């Protein structure tokens, strides 16, 4: 089985989907000739031509809005936002249009667009190249939000997103792009959107997280295993709508739950996860639900001292896990 990086899995999924269905096309800033600022669309322009790998004007609302229109016709656009931070000009198109298209037309029209965006920090990207923006969209019924944590998941979930008949936001951790490598089967598999995934079975404490933090939690779990602390790790994978059943099952399994996000704490996805657990698992809990998240400041600063202070990392995760195990 080939081993590839997280970003190679993105490119592979795009290439395979473009071969499978000629209605699939890519649009965004610098995605064509250059192959994307992160090179996620590398080689696609040469392979499929400028009409299926569109360099658009620098205008995010148009990238989303034109994509939505094409999707309404029956195309399968995969729009790239160069950074998740720059999705803001397109929020009206995403929330007022894509999310509501099926509902407002009483199931007459739909908008099957996939919008990919690199998110996350730890790359010296400062305030506007580091953000986690998922919570802005995570109370918008009609949207689906996927955040994969491994190359294997990237390929299977991106294919699922492109084939999904509803709009999907697909956030890729930009530090994971080259940091994470893993085995990715050559065959044409899809993974279910809306389902969380147990990344490690364990019996002492439960970690529920997503994206790059899954990787940090797995690292910390290996260390803690040497101390006899056995962590159960649930990767949300789809952060909207949440897989409530899997969350409840994972929380009940150990009765001690740590929730982790790279976003700042207040109003983040994990607050909703905590509410689900509080509603359903009160008598199964042996400790207060714990949250590890970024501080409530506007965004991640540039200087390495402050960036490190903001970012979740394996050490912070390990400490939070140990504290919970010892509760």
């Amino acid at each position, binding site marked *: 089985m080939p081993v590839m990086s997280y970003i190679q899995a993105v490119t592979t999924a795009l290439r395979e989907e473009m071969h499978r269905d000629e209605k699939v*096309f890519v649009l965004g800033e610098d995605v064509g000739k250059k192959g994307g600022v992160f090179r996620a669309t590398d080689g696609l322009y040469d392979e499929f031509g400028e*009409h*299926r790998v*569109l360099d*658009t*004007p620098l*205008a995010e*609302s*148009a990238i*989303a*809005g*034109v*994509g*939505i*229109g*094409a*999707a*309404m*016709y*029956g*195309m399968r*656009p995969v729009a790239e936002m160069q950074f998740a931070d720059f999705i803001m*000009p397109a929020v*009206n*198109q995403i929330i*007022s*249009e894509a999310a*509501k*298209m*099926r*509902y*407002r*037309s*009483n*199931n*007459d*029209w*739909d908008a099957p667009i996939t919008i990919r965006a690199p998110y996350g920090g730890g790359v010296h990207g400062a305030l506007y190249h580091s953000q986690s923006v998922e919570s802005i969209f995570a109370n918008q*019924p*009609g949207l*689906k939000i996927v955040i994969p944590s491994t190359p294997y998941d990237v390929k299977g979930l991106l294919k699922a997103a492109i084939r999904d*008949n*509803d709009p999907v936001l697909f956030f890729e951790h930009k530090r994971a792009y080259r940091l994470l490598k893993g085995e990715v089967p050559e065959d044409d598999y899809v993974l279910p959107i809306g389902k969380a995934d147990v990344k490690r079975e364990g019996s002492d404490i439960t970690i529920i997280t997503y994206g790059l933090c899954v990787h940090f939690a797995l690292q910390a779990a290996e260390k803690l295993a040497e101390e006899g602390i056995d962590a159960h790790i649930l990767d949300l994978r789809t952060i909207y709508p949440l897989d409530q059943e899997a969350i409840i099952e994972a929380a009940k399994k150990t009765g001690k739950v740590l929730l982790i996000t790279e976003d700042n704490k207040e109003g983040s996805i994990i607050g909703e996860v905590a509410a689900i657990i509080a509603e359903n698992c009160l008598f199964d809990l042996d400790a207060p639900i714990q949250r590890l998240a970024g501080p409530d400041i506007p965004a991640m600063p540039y200087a390495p001292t402050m960036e490190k202070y903001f970012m979740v990392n394996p050490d912070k995760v390990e400490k939070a896990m140990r504290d919970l195990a010892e509760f």
Partner: protein
Amino acid sequence: MSNTRHAELGLSDEKVLDMYRTMLLARKLDERMWLLNRAGKIPFVISCQGQEAAQVGASFALDREIDYVAPYYRDMGVVLAFGMTAKELMLSGFAKAEDPNSGGRQMPGHFGQKKNRILSGSSPVTTQLPHAVGIALAAKMEKKDFVSFVTLGEGSSNQGDFHEGLNFAGVHNLPVITMVENNKYAISVPIEKQIASKTVADRAVSYGMPGVTIDGNDPLAVYEAVKEARERAVNGEGPSLIEAVSYRLTAHSSDDDDRTYRESEEVEEARKKDSIITFAAYLKEVGILTEEVEKEINKSITDIVNEATDYAENAPYAEAESALKYVYEE
């Protein structure tokens, strides 16, 4: 009578009469909706009155079998011309389950009907413009002969989506026709306080497309401009911007009182140019709208409006719990 204006444009007598009939149906439906609103039977109306000539003239210049339209809330004339029925519009007015636009989910004026290629619209203005550009992009990618047609108000031409969408269309040379229905007001704010350029059409220059300003009260002038734009679009010559100037004859909506910001003399003056009157006068002058024909049209439209009203008023609402349906594919 081959030297009439409409014959010179290649329009038969039947076609122009059909145009007039569609304009009049839009007007009469709209008037009925106001009555229903003032009688407390429907909560909201937003009018086409004063813009029927632009809407119907443009629609008749399109290919109503294949083209896509992304109308805005005043475009009753467009959606009627594209196949939505009076009954369906009334169902939307009454927010009944059978409303094809939204099943009673959206306010009236939020059109959409896939079988007639009418894109679903929302309330935030101008969001439909990039959608129409996306449809045109699909036409180009799929090498199809249809065009897309999108409308909006002049105030709405200040939104970012106007700029982003038209520039995208210009750069990629897409078959999309944008028609700004300039009715001189955006709620209470007059055109002088909306737009710094002399005309809306002037803005076309920066998008690399032709821009024309035409008399929106003259359906034949609008027909001619849209026809030309469509020909250019299907010949691969790209997008166009058309500004159809008319006047908003009613208040902005049933919730607005326009006496607080404009003089009634101004409205009266505009009524003299009302296309329903002036186009009827033209059709009489050329001998098409005879007394007999006019009588027949008036009667048939009254019947249609009455039937539509009765049907919609008596139709059921959607079940309350149906509010939960169609968030995602089911």
